[in-house]
């Protein structure tokens, strides 16, 4: 999605190297995806659901991801 949209950027973060993020983002299972530091979803979701979360983070209507 980062390739398809210039305003989207994506980090893949190995938590074993950055343990402080486990606490910071209250990680209880992986993968956990954080969007703009305020939304999140757990696990691997189907592409339409990931898209819905991305659109929500971008300010589009929808309530798919947790806050």
């Amino acid at each position, binding site marked *: 999605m980062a*390739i398809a949209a210039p305003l*989207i950027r994506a*980090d893949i973060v190995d938590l074993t*190297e950055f343990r402080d993020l486990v606490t910071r983002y209250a990680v209880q299972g992986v993968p956990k995806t954080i969007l703009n530091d305020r939304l999140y979803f757990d696990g691997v979701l189907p592409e339409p659901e990931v898209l819905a979360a991305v*659109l929500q983070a*971008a300010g589009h209507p929808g309530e798919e991801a947790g806050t």
Partner: protein
Amino acid sequence: MHLLSERDADAVRARLAPLAGPVRLVFFTDGGGGIIVPGRECRSCGETQRLLEDVASCSELLTLEVHDRLRDSDAFARYGIDKIPGLALVGAADYGIRYYGMPAGYELRLMLELVLDVGRGDGELLPETRAALTGVAQDVHLQVLSTPT
């Protein structure tokens, strides 16, 4: 010393065979010599760099650039890197794809998939996803937090 065995290197070469265009592996590290704060030292930076050197040698389309935190802080700012070891995967454009940590084992397979996507300049999305993404008009920063499997 190589981190990839000859057998693993063969597998990486095979995986990278379809690479469609040049990809720069822009690696961010702490090369040592600076002040080390206990608990904040970069334990895997050296190994990660050696691994990336091995991976880069597996395809003529891959190049590795190394930036040191102390000597090259401008590059950290330019690529938006806030942790080390950090890696920017840059193809025809910088699509904002970063990998933080050491991509070993299964994570290496994931990184190679990213390299192929970046080299192609395309992420194999559904047509409807692609269409919806054209409407994204605000910054979205995704952080996928994971652990090696």
